[in-house]
């Protein structure tokens, strides 16, 4: 092996060639094709398809659906995932192994299998309905399947690991003595959390939010199986346009709009992390 300090920058750059080539062939080119299609009119370049898309109130409802569901999924993942990440970082030995396995192993189960499993859980005679009846919260069985609540619950379950792991990796690095030092200065556990733990885990939270939001904003299989055709998001609309309506221009347009939202969120959250980092 050549020692790293002997490598020139250009030689190190060679290491990136396979990944760059792969991305260009299988990602950049199709994406460019998609982008080009959305701007293609009969007489050349045009914004027509975007004008038509944004003129239709139905599409605004679809955008609203997409952002609302993605935000709710992200919120549920954050609320459920944050305590798990902290517990995981503080666990030792076998407890940590079991926790980590139970977070990572579900990733190996396909999303379709999970969505079908949620169909069983969420239907009228499903576990959730029966449990809520037994607790006296519901008077009669109701189905959560094909509702937004059911969709959010199912999607949050699938994406939860992508919230837990980035937060965990940040919590793990926080010096435990910081909280102890705050305690000896008279800070209550709640005050310690707000002033020390939360600000220091913010980068992990932002990463997790970015992950889950970009996954949830573009999910296709889960809404198809858990809520059905009557509820459209940008991703399911894109799928419908390409697969059923054979309208490539509409499909390209919705795909580009979706991409624009996802990229905006990623850039905004990265910027936010930088901002927070620089005030420290």
């Amino acid at each position, binding site marked *: 092996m050549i020692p790293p300090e002997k490598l020139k920058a250009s030689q190190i750059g060679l290491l990136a060639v396979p990944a760059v080539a792969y991305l260009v062939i299988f990602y950049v080119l199709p994406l460019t094709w998609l982008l080009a299609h959305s701007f293609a009119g009969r007489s050349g370049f045009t914004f027509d398809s975007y004008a038509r898309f944004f003129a239709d109130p139905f599409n605004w409802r679809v955008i609203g659906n997409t952002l609302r569901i993605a935000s709710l999924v992200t919120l549920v993942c954050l609320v459920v995932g944050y305590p798990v990440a902290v517990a995981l970082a503080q666990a030792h030995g076998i407890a940590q192994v079991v926790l980590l396995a139970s977070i990572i192993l579900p990733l190996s189960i396909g999303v379709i299998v999970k969505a079908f499993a949620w169909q069983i859980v969420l239907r009228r005679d499903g576990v959730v309905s029966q449990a809520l009846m037994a607790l006296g919260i519901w008077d009669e069985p109701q189905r959560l399947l094909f509702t937004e609540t059911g969709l959010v619950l199912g999607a949050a379950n699938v994406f939860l690991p992508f919230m837990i792991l980035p937060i965990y990796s940040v919590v793990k690095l926080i010096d435990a003595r910081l909280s102890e030092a705050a305690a*000896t*200065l008279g800070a209550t556990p709640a005050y310690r959390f707000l002033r020390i733990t939360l600000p*220091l885990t913010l980068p992990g939270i932002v990463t997790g939010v970015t992950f889950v939001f970009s996954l949830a904003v573009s999910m296709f299989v889960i809404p198809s199986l858990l809520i059905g055709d009557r509820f459209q998001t940008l991703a399911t609309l894109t799928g419908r346009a390409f697969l059923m309506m054979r309208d490539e221009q509409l499909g390209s347009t919705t795909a580009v709009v979706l991409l624009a939202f996802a990229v905006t969120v990623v850039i905004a959250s990265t910027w936010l992390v930088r901002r927070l980092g620089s005030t420290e």
Partner: protein
Amino acid sequence: MAPVLPFLDIVAASKRFGVATVLDGVGIGVARGEFVSLLGPSGCGKTTLLRIIAGLLTPDDGTVRLDGEDITRKPPHRRDIGVVFQNYALFPHLTVSENIAFGLQSRRVDRDEIRKAVAGLLDLVHLTEFADRSVRLLSGGQQQRVAVARALAVKPKLLLFDEPFSALDRKLREVMQIELKRLLREVAATAIFVTHDQDEALTMSDRVAVMNRGAIDQFAEPAAVYHRPATSFALGFVGLSTRLAGTVRDAPSNGEVLVETSIGSVRGAGGFVTGTPVIVGIRPERIRIGTGSGNSAKATLTDVVFQGSKTFLHFAASSGDQFLVETSDPPRIGLEPGSVLDLTWSVEDTLLYPTESTR
């Protein structure tokens, strides 16, 4: 009149981690305004004791009383005990003043009052021009001063230091020791200081507690710890010494005993039964070169180590035993390695300890 309780009073504190007993029935009393060091090697339980005092650990047995109040089970944030941690544990996302203000803010002290207190503390630790700087951009010595100021800000009843100088280089450490001593005198603080550095403990403390394997071997003024170590562990851990193995041969009733060693008979003070195996210890500055009354030995000079104001002379007796002699005024002649010289030390300076026990 009822006996006055010490300001900090720890009675029979024990702590076990699994099968390991880290603290074994430790008791210690610290007076108000006193500066006490817990001195010992790593693993002796000194940090565990400190954490029990701070409330970061709960002892399995025993009680901790501060200012007459039993605080054994009180959570740390209601104890009013400040801690300066080993690596300072400064809040990395806050500035110097925000770090110092933290304790006052958590107690919801009035904003103007906080500003005034922080300004005063910054002045006290000479960090005024660094007020708005991130603590991550400070040097080790500056971080250390921030940690002290942060702990002082809430005016704690008691200040604890967990090896606060261990990350500093030797020169800076000596400066900081003097500075901290001055600072604590200015605010009239009661302080407990954990260290494995005997020089630090002897320099700074009013009293030193020498800790060994979860117990306190000796709790006394620095001079007493050095000149009259209570155990052979204290003799070995604090300062240098010559050590000889021997057996008590005769114990007349005058308080003196006769010990048979490989260099011959040695007289010392102590109440030992005949036949007891003992360790004989002598401090290096207590041995004189030349003949005289008391104990004596003939030994060959092997090394001369010049250290400026003092010189260490290493000797070997024909039995193989090593002698260490410290002198500030070495004889001008006859100091070549290989010369055989007479060594003399008094009976009072002959320290005796039972061999087996380290307590």
